[in-house]
């Protein structure tokens, strides 16, 4: 059980719209940051800021130590085999692009024989799912277009779950990459990673996991999951914006060609050619988001101190309240599993469509009550199309979300149709 953590999060103390207390239910988009994270970054900037791995002076040493210490913290949170398996990126989107563009470059011959294992082309296929966030869809679309490979997808059933029976047919011997989300940012459904990995291994495809919504909310062990690459963001796991991470098996990262080039990533540079470092350095060209990495490290430590099992239990309880509440509300449709006994499988969020009221209008009424939710397609247009809607309203929780927040959301939502005079 988590204690009430609101006091750890300065932003939650503020009021909105004529002094109303804030019920922040937009953590799925971006989370708030605890004092511990803000303090770690501020302290770094005030005392230890220097060029990482590049100076001979004390500040450079201290900055390097903080930066690499943060990498070790994040590695521990996701059980990487070593900190070197963690590559800092701008965000999860950049991490996923790093893999897709690296494979694209390998397919053009970059990295030579060493990187040949990543080559794909005409006749090959890349498999995604209908539930993907655009960040784990468009890079693969583009890679397919660039290499001549075919993009295929696993469909989503009415309950929001992957149609796992399609794994056996959609993934076949032509499949080189299977990219799928660990947990949907719309339905909250947690994927059956083992089923994906087992099938991908049968055909020798690499697996790329979008772990944006899992790492902040569930115990995650990438080694145990058995995937090859995984991406996640600082700002969703109580860390800052401006930083994310790619995890990958070291032996794969070491031979994946880079796609962003600059200082620090290369061993020797002449005007004619260049040789790369091993990972993670080969991917960390230019001045890294150092302060932000320190913040993400502090967030990892904060979450580990809470215990990810307790985090998951807490958010599951919030999810139950919200999901049960909305499923009993007339004129409100919940996207994803309804009244599921096996609530383990769903994140602490609920995404709904209110009959007769546009999601913008829903969000506006809730906002006026001090309840912050997300409206729109949540960067998952194919999934919305699958459900036959253009947009929806999402309430999503985090460690600081209280039962009161959940109840305020339910009350607010119940008032929406009346406000717009939609007949019951």
């Amino acid at each position, binding site marked *: 059980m988590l204690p009430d953590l609101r006091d750890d999060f300065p932003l939650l103390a503020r009021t909105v719209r004529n002094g109303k207390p804030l019920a922040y239910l937009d953590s799925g988009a971006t989370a708030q940051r605890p004092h511990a994270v803000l303090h770690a970054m501020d302290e770094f900037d005030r005392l230890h800021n220097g060029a990482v791995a590049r100076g001979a002076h004390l500040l450079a040493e201290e900055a390097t130590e903080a930066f690499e210490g943060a990498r070790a913290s994040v590695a521990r949170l996701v059980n990487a085999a070593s900190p070197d398996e963690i590559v800092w990126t701008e965000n999860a989107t950049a991490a996923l692009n790093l893999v897709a563009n690296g494979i694209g470059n390998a397919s053009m011959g970059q990295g030579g024989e060493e990187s040949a294992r990543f080559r794909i082309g005409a006749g090959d296929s890349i498999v995604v799912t209908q539930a993907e966030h655009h960040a784990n869809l468009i890079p693969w679309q583009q890679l397919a277009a660039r290499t001549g490979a075919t993009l295929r997808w696993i469909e989503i059933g009415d309950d929001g779950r992957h149609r796992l029976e399609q794994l056996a047919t959609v993934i076949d011997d032509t499949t080189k990459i299977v990219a799928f989300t660990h947990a949907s940012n719309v339905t909250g459904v947690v994927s059956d990673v083992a089923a994906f990995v087992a099938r991908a291994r049968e055909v020798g495809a690499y697996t790329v996991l979008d772990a944006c919504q899992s790492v902040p909310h569930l115990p995650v062990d990438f080694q145990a999951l058995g995937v090859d690459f995984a991406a996640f963001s600082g700002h969703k796991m109580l860390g800052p914006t401006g930083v994310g991470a790619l995890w990958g098996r070291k032996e794969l990262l070491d031979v994946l060609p880079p796609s962003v080039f600059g200082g620090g990533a290369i061993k020797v540079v002449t005007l004619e050619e260049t040789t790369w470092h091993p990972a993670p350095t080969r991917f960390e060209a230019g001045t890294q988001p150092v302060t932000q990495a320190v913040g993400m490290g502090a967030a990892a430590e904060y979450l580990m101190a809470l215990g990810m099992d307790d985090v998951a239990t807490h958010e599951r309880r919030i999810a139950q309240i919200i999901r049960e509440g909305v499923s009993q509300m007339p004129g409100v449709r919940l996207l994803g599993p309804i009244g599921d006994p096996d609530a383990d499988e769903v994140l602490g969020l609920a995404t709904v469509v209110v009959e007769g009221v546009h999601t913008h209008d829903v969000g506006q009424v809730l906002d006026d009550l001090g309840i912050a939710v997300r409206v729109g*397609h949540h960067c998952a247009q194919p999934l919305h199309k699958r459900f036959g809607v253009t947009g929806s309203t999402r309430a999503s929780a985090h460690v600081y979300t209280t039962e009161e927040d959940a109840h305020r959301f339910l009350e607010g939502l119940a008032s929406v149709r009346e406000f*717009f005079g939609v007949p019951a």
Partner: protein
Amino acid sequence: MSSLEQMYQQVIMDHARARHGAGLVDLDLPAVGESHQVNTTCGDEVTLRVGLDGDTVASVHWEGQGCSISQASISALTELVEGHSLEEADEVYEAFRALMGNRGEDLGDDRDDMLGDAGAFVGVGKYPARIKCALLGWMALRDAVAQAQAAGGAEGENDG
């Protein structure tokens, strides 16, 4: 009146339901133009067809889906510009944009009268994220007029 009530005034709610001009029809006019606009944060969209008769906006029809603000705004603009000159339509557009930028205050001059029902959108100006909704139809109108002028270009030039 709360800010929320100021935004969703009865006039707006009525327009959102009435949807003047809704439904695309074939237009038998010298210059016809059409525009499709999407508000990408929410997926709202409108297809608007305008028919010009010389300098007059002879007909406005549209099809679309979106929030009450966007739908009501298209409905209100249809009423406002149909049968009026292009110059008047431009003036109304400028006034409407000014209203949107006025952070929830009336303009306080004769442009308020010019806006008619569209003046009821004053409350939207307090919500920057919604201004795009209110402007969606106007973007479509201006683009459609440009298309119509291009299509009817030959005659237009001769007239001039």
